[in-house]
């Protein structure tokens, strides 16, 4: 018992680890690693530090691998033709300057990662093998380890097993971050001249399709908990387009990608009556090739109106093609191959059932995230954003995240040359929001468990609060159970219930560092959910069916709503909405690819 108390004392009184760096990158995933390597290559004298919640070897979205790069300019395509297509896919509203700038880097970043050892499939003439207009085939099982090892080799300092909790702010500028070790009694104060946030988007806001032990059988990385959004929201950063949610069309239960079925193997969507509903009902918006939201909206409406289940029809495949299909999945999503074998499904004999996932908030497929300029500078001085956490530029996928990491790093490195002094610790303590306050906020859930009671009945676990948050969002803010539909009265209920949920944060408790990480993830998710609900209420049209379906405003309305919905949370916790104009750069009909 005495030993236990000692351990608790250590746990509750962490060692403060002070670190200084020139460039700090929060999140060692796809965008973060590329930013770190680029910065080192531009100037090897700059100290570059990556802080990562897990271990960069497999952390982030690429853990399982990838079998294609889905944003690439195949022969004959240009940044302009890409932007035009992405504008069509994003239903006419996006930051064209950002999409153009990411597309201009595709060639550079893809060649770069190939030179580190990524196998890209080539035809007899040595050209990349296309798998669709913007896609090329790769053997990407080891994509993340390849990038991670290059990061280490480039001389980047990597702090694994530490999750970021809040920015260090001095006179309105971002000067680094606070982070907590996930496995020891350490609290990091990392001071930096410039910071790039690359933490990814947010999963776990809505109730998932599967429950129980399968609750993390979801499309997006369940470990992307929106920390970067939440830190920005708390620091008063301007955020954009949270209402442009992402819902993936997946195979049912096992949630594996349908792109491989459609693009790689020519499968089309059918309903229970064998009707190709995308062609018969949605040809006016592009049929099978309709913008991504319609490809989720189509089958969702079939299900809602009683014509489900819906499928991807794979029955045209030969035995050999079915074998190749399995091979293709083994490179990025092995589970489905096991699932088919366990359940007696042969894709050449029966169609593959599909469904939409729960909604996610992210800037990699859609455009939720920090409002940035063309250099990926956020509205907070000293802070850049890259990858899924950065807004306005949809259709990034892997290569767009590479590109944004590179773009942000170039500008940050340029500015570091002119940066004078690092903040010192006294200044941090004198600041309005002190280190002491952050320590208290961060470790409070451990205190609650270990000092106050040690009984689970005396507080709230992270799992309990997460389940409640997900239930609220599912039922009142357009989750799976309501076919993604929402209206102002229902969103107002969500708003009220979230306020009550927030008031219960002080009752959260954690028995160890792993639980502490999870507790902070759920707090971050509440910050994200509150901003999301305000964005959903504000946009009084339906621009992206399924992603953002308003039953009270069912039509798109360009006259009133061809603009961005942005927000800033002020010091009193009020979320203020700001409208920003859309600017068309690439000429042409905005609703044609």
């Amino acid at each position, binding site marked *: 018992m005495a030993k236990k108390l000692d351990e608790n004392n250590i746990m509750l009184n962490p060692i403060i680890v002070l670190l200084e760096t020139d460039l700090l990158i929060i999140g060692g995933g796809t965008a973060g690693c590329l930013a770190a390597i680029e910065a080192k290559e531009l100037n090897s004298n700059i100290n570059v530090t990556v802080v990562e919640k897990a271990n960069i*070897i*497999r952390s982030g979205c690429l853990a399982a691998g990838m079998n294609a790069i889905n944003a690439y300019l195949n022969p004959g395509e240009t940044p302009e033709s890409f932007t035009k297509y992405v504008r069509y896919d994003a239903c006419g509203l996006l930051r064209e300057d950002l999409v153009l700038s990411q597309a201009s880097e595709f060639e550079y970043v893809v060649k770069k990662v190939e030179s580190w050892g990524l196998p890209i499939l080539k035809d007899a003439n040595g050209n990349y093998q296309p798998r669709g207009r913007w896609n090329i085939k790769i053997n990407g099982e080891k994509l993340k380890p390849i990038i991670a090892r290059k990061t280490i080799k480039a001389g980047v300092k990597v702090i694994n097993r530490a999750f970021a909790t809040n920015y260090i702010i001095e006179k309105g500028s971002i000067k680094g971050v606070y982070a907590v070790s996930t496995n020891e009694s350490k609290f990091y104060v990392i001071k930096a001249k410039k910071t790039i946030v690359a933490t990814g988007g947010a999963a776990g806001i809505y109730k998932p399709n599967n429950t129980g032990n399968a609750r993390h059988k979801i499309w997006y990385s369940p470990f992307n908990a929106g920390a970067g959004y939440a830190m920005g929201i708390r620091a008063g950063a301007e955020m954009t387009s949270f209402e442009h949610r992402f819902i993936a069309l997946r195979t049912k239960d096992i949630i594996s990608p349908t792109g491989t079925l459609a693009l790689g193997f020519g499968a089309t969507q059918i309903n229970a009556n064998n009707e190709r509903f995308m062609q018969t009902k949605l040809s006016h918006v592009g049929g099978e090739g309709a913008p991504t939201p319609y490809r989720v909206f189509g089958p969702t409406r079939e299900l809602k109106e009683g014509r489900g289940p819906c499928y991807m029809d794979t029955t045209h495949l030969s035995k050999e093609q079915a074998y190749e299909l399995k091979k293709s999945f083994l490179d990025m999503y*092995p589970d489905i191959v*096991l699932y088919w074998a366990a359940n007696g499904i042969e894709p050449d004999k029966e169609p593959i059932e599909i469904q939409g996932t729960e909604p996610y908030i992210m800037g990699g497929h859609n455009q939720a995230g920090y409002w940035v300029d063309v250099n990926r500078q956020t509205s907070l001085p000293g802070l850049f954003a890259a990858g899924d956490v950065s807004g306005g530029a949809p259709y990034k996928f892997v290569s767009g995240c590479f590109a944004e990491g590179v773009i942000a790093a170039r500008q940050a490195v340029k500015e570091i040359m002119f940066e004078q002094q690092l903040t010192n610790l006294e200044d941090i303590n004198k600041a309005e929001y002190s280190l002491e306050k952050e320590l208290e906020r961060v470790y409070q859930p451990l205190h609650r468990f270990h000092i106050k009671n040690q009984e689970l009945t005396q507080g709230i676990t992270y799992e309990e609060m997460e389940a409640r948050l997900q239930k609220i969002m599912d039922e009142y803010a357009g989750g799976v159970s309501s076919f993604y539909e929402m209206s102002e009265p229902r969103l107002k209920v969500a708003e009220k219930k979230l306020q009550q949920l927030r008031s219960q944060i002080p009752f959260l408790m954690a028995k160890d560092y*792993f639980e502490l990480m999870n507790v902070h993830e759920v707090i971050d998710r509440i910050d994200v959910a509150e901003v999301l609900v305000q964005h959903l209420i504000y946009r009084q049209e339906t621009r992206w069916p399924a992603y953002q379906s308003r039953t009270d405003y069912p039509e798109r309305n360009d006259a009133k709503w061809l603009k961005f919905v942005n927000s800033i949370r002020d010091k009193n916790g009020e979320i203020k909405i700001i409208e920003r104009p859309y600017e068309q750069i690439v000429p042409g009909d905005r609703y044609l690819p």
Partner: protein
Amino acid sequence: MAVIIDHLKCNGCRDALESRCEEVCPGNLMIRNEEHKAVIRSMSDCWDCMACVKACPMQAIKTKLPYELAAFGAELKPKTTNKQIVWTLKYPDGREEVFTIPVESI
């Protein structure tokens, strides 16, 4: 239920600072217990990415899909070498299918 670890095969990666499965888990879920054997700290938090299954040098880890999703009796096992991953898929009726996929050796 996410991954099952065969503690007869697991050697905790001996004296490595982090075991291979700890190193590759994107969710901080793998740790070594008091007997120095790998364990997953929360089954329901697993993403089923199979990073640990592929990384384990002892082939001590296998994926078990939750029963609510998949019937009992099938197995999928990778064997990783420098240049390729050989996947063996076992059907409940005992049939086997083998897939060889090239990877970059690093």
